[in-house]
């Protein structure tokens, strides 16, 4: 059983005017097989949390720890984290001109698995995974994310999830920019992989819509850089009805006391 443990995490972002604190004490433990939804208003620091877990160089951890099965994650380079079993589906996937999707995927899978998959088996595996996400085969020869629509980028992220098979997957607003059909296809992809029981999932979202397709075990409300309330799926329902207002108020009150 793999466990990602985040304890009292504080982090800032480097800006032109100096370091700006964003995460202010995040505590969260995710175990393989569990799905946690983190929900919060715009700008509350959700993506920052995701980036800090993945090791983006722009963010600096000022306090606290992240461990994967007891091993210090903060000590690892970005690619070491990925090879250790962490995966981030990005809110805004990056375009890489000139690098074909098929080359990218094979290189990534080889790096994570530690050996190159046999070419013929690999092609079959990739084609099937693409078909399951309704990604046209022609995408294999296109440059990574270049000219992809918002929805195509998100499918491509989930394609990577299914091929890389991480221990812990962080999905940052995978639902944003998707129409209902695309949302269903992408959610099915995530669920297929969740059902393998091999992953712990951290689902970051602004809206409850995706939670109708991907059922979380735990829901956390994220405001002003930390988790202000945790509960079961019923918390998502409450959020849907009442919005973030009361939590924002509570967070402000908590911060000023």
């Amino acid at each position: 059983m793999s466990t990602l443990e985040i304890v009292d995490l504080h982090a800032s972002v480097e800006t032109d005017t100096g370091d700006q604190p964003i995460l202010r004490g995040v505590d969260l433990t995710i175990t393989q097989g569990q799905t946690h939804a983190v929900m919060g208003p715009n700008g509350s620091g959700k993506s920052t949390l995701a980036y800090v877990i993945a090791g983006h160089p722009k963010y600096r951890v000022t306090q606290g720890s992240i461990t994967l099965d007891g091993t210090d994650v903060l000590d690892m380079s970005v690619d070491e984290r990925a090879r250790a079993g962490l995966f981030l589906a990005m809110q805004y996937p990056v375009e890489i001109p000139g690098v074909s999707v098929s080359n990218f995927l094979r290189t990534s899978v080889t790096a994570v698995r530690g050996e190159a998959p046999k070419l013929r088996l690999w092609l079959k595996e990739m084609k099937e995974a693409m078909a399951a996400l309704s990604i046209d085969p022609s995408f294999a020869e296109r440059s990574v994310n270049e000219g992809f629509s918002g929805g195509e980028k998100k499918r491509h992220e989930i394609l990577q999830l299914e091929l890389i098979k991480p221990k812990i997957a962080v999905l940052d607003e995978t639902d944003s920019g998707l129409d209902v059909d695309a949302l269903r296809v992408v959610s099915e992809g995530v669920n297929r992989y969740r059902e393998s029981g091999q992953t712990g999932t951290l689902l970051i979202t602004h809206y409850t819509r995706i939670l109708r397709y991907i059922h979380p075990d735990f829901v956390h409300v994220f405001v002003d850089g930390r988790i202000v309330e945790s509960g079961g799926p019923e918390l998502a329902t409450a959020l849907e009805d009442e919005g973030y207002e009361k939590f924002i108020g509570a967070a402000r009150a908590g911060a000023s006391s």
Partner: protein
Amino acid sequence: MSPVMVPATDHAPLVVSYDPEAFEVPTGREEEWRFTPLARLAGLHEHPQATSTARIEVSAPSGVTVTDVDVAELEGDASAPPIDRISAIAWAQASTITRVVVPAESQIEDVIDIVVDTPAGVSFGQLRIDIGAFAQAKALIRFTGAGVFAGGIQVHVADQARAAVATVIDPAPTAVNVSRLHVRLGRDASVTSSVISLGGDLVRMNASVEYTAPGGDAEFLGLFFADGGQHHEHRVFVDHSQPHGRSSVTYKGALEGEGTHTVWIGDVLVRANAIGIDTYEVNRNLVLSDGARADSVPNLELETGEVVGAGHASATGRFDDEQMFYLRSRGITEELARVLVVRGFFADILGRTRIPGLAESVMTTIDARLGVSDLVAEVLGDGDDGQS
């Protein structure tokens, strides 16, 4: 841009001559020399004497003849005369020219393989390739060795002939290579020229094409990879002096490391009578690390407006932190991420050279320069079965 606007044909060489003394020794302030570190030219501009001999070895498929001819035989109209002091010195100092002839109407399948070895010391050499009318041939010219070399390659493609010529400059790290590649196209003749510079301390390659009759078609490709303080300078001159010609120039460079400098100057001149031509030139550079610098100057000079198309583009981009983060977040090491991006960047050029096997050998060299492991080569070399 130079503030001084000179009238028409300011991009054609002002002086052409077989006499080195017809050209001044440059000071470094001249437009043609302002990017070149003259001190690293090993005295080629002064009065260099050959202290070693360039060996030009040709493996010619049957049907192709190779002879040594006296330089005097090819002066005058038979060649394009030197355009600067070094090319004039290189002509004057080479007593013979290696001449490769593909007879008219012959179809040569195998690549004519030519190695120009430039041993330590200073050497000069001249190569001439003639592709007869209606013939088709491919040639691969590879520069090797550790010395200082100046020389010229002239490729004459007769009426309706079709040529593919690749010039790979990958000598030892100490080498200096100042070369000129000139293509002369007959009526409806076509050429694909690929100039690839990888090695040496200083490379300065002047590639040019002239049209002697209407309908010529030149595809000029270039690829340069420079690191560790190398200076790679590519100059292109397309001289549209005939109607209905076509030229397409695509040069791409990748560079990294402190003090590394690449230069691309693309001059296209469309003379008044060159109506109905179509020309496009583009240079793209990928800067992989701080401290490396790419200069890129496209010049398009139109003396007629009656063209099918005329355009140019130039862009220098960085391999940025977000791209690196994305690739690394997928488990790909920093080193491998760079290889992946560089391979992707060069793929279109290498796919168009028409020289079999060239793409693979160039990429293998670049992989090694980027410090790639065997595993990487195996993953990226798509041909095998991925056994490990």
